[in-house]
């Protein structure tokens, strides 16, 4: 059965990638990438992505840079992105949300929470679309 939404998971630890894929695969189409640069390349190739789930600390392009790039791009400025990080301090969380992240999950995470937060962010976006009388 074709799933409704495509989730792009960006995470440099291969095992955590696997955990996320296993967690999400029943409900979403899942693509995994190892860092922000690869994730960005996947997006720029025009692959369908409804929501991004990204780690912060990664080589090459980290999560914060990724949010900044997405928000600066005319194509991806509204693409939902949820951060997933071991950094638990409020400074980092606030910084990410201010950069334009839609939510923030602290590692270690409960897989159910990840699944639910993705659904919640997607639902919010669907609802706001309905509320707009003249979508462009």
């Amino acid at each position: 059965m074709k799933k409704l939404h495509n989730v792009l998971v960006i995470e440099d630890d291969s095992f955590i990638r696997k955990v996320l894929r296993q967690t999400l695969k029943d409900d979403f189409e899942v693509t995994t990438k190892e860092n922000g640069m690869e994730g960005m390349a996947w997006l720029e190739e025009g692959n369908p992505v409804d929501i991004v789930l990204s780690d912060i600390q990664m080589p090459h392009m980290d999560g914060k840079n990724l949010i900044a790039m997405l928000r600066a791009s005319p194509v991806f400025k509204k693409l939902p992105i949820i951060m997933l990080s071991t950094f638990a301090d409020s400074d980092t969380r606030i910084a990410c949300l201010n950069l334009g992240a839609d939510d923030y999950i602290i590692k270690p995470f409960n897989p159910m929470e990840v699944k639910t937060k993705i659904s919640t962010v997607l639902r919010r976006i669907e609802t706001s679309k309905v509320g707009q009388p003249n979508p462009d």
Partner: protein
Amino acid sequence: MISNHSPDGFTILLVDDREENLLALEDMLATENRTFLKATSGSDALRKVLKNESIGLIMLDVQMPDMDGFEVAHLLKSNPRTKDIAIIFVTAISKDEQYVMKGFSEGAVDYLQKPLDINVTKAKVNVFERLYRYQQDLKQSVQKIEQINKQLEKFVYVVAHDLKSPLTGIIGAMSLLEMAAENPEGIQDELLEYISHSKEASFYMANMINSLLEYSRTSIDQQTIEEVDVQELVEQIARLLFPPKHITIQIHGPLPVMRTKKLKLQQVLQNLISNAIKYNDKAEGLIEIGYRDFKNHVEFYVRDNGPGIAVDEQDMIFNLFQKSARNPDTTTTVESSTGVGLSILKLLVEEQGGNVWVTSPPHQGSTFYVEWTK
């Protein structure tokens, strides 16, 4: 004994509107390590105080035209930069209660009465000099402690963060196991993978905790400074690490003999040499250890012909050490020594007032430098 470090100079500012009084005071108080600055008016005194941060005491004449001593003192005490400088008022007025009280209410530390009694004046200034030195010592200790505290705070933050990383893997594996348990058919391999991952990540954490315990133990035990023959120490380390046959360890010695905290230096050098052995990927591994002597410190180096470290990883191995290029997937790799090693090493070296860094030109191995304060 005034102080246990080298007696730095003591600068006294003499303020009097009469030149001859200034000369007499200087003559009375002169000793080898004292420097005198002189001001002939209140405004001149303020200028000199603001220009010279080293002033430890001001001998302040009270009765001066334009701006009197109390006014000068008042201005100095209201400026955070100058409020702690000790002041001795020098007043010609016979013991006038009112003046004395006024002096104290301005925050003066003491006063002397003209005509000055040579012995009393000398004794009083000696006391102030001693107080000044105690104060300086205290300031230095506080600064050092604050610096170490900051390092420790940062360290605790990083360690907490790093201890959480393997937990993310373990909890992830457990969740997958839980999911798999609901539908247990044909998932033997998966189960084994999750279990083995959890086990490895747990060992990794245990190793990290061991390094931390080791660090805190050596910090508590080893505060004594002793004479250390570094040549002997390094030879011993090289023996005890049992390097494999294809690894040659060359010591460009003789390394110096220095007075330092032996166990800390040993931990640092042992960590670097053991890394150099462990990560060496050549058929003929070569590790060189040597040093350069500087005035206040010794710069040790440990050079290897191993895989080297990419430029963008070089800072990271000390800071975000849980993910170095040498060990990119920490939660899936078992290492007998964890990344905590290098960050503890950095902390140990910085505690001694030194520094540690690495250079690694492409395909030429890495050289770790340790600046160790004498």
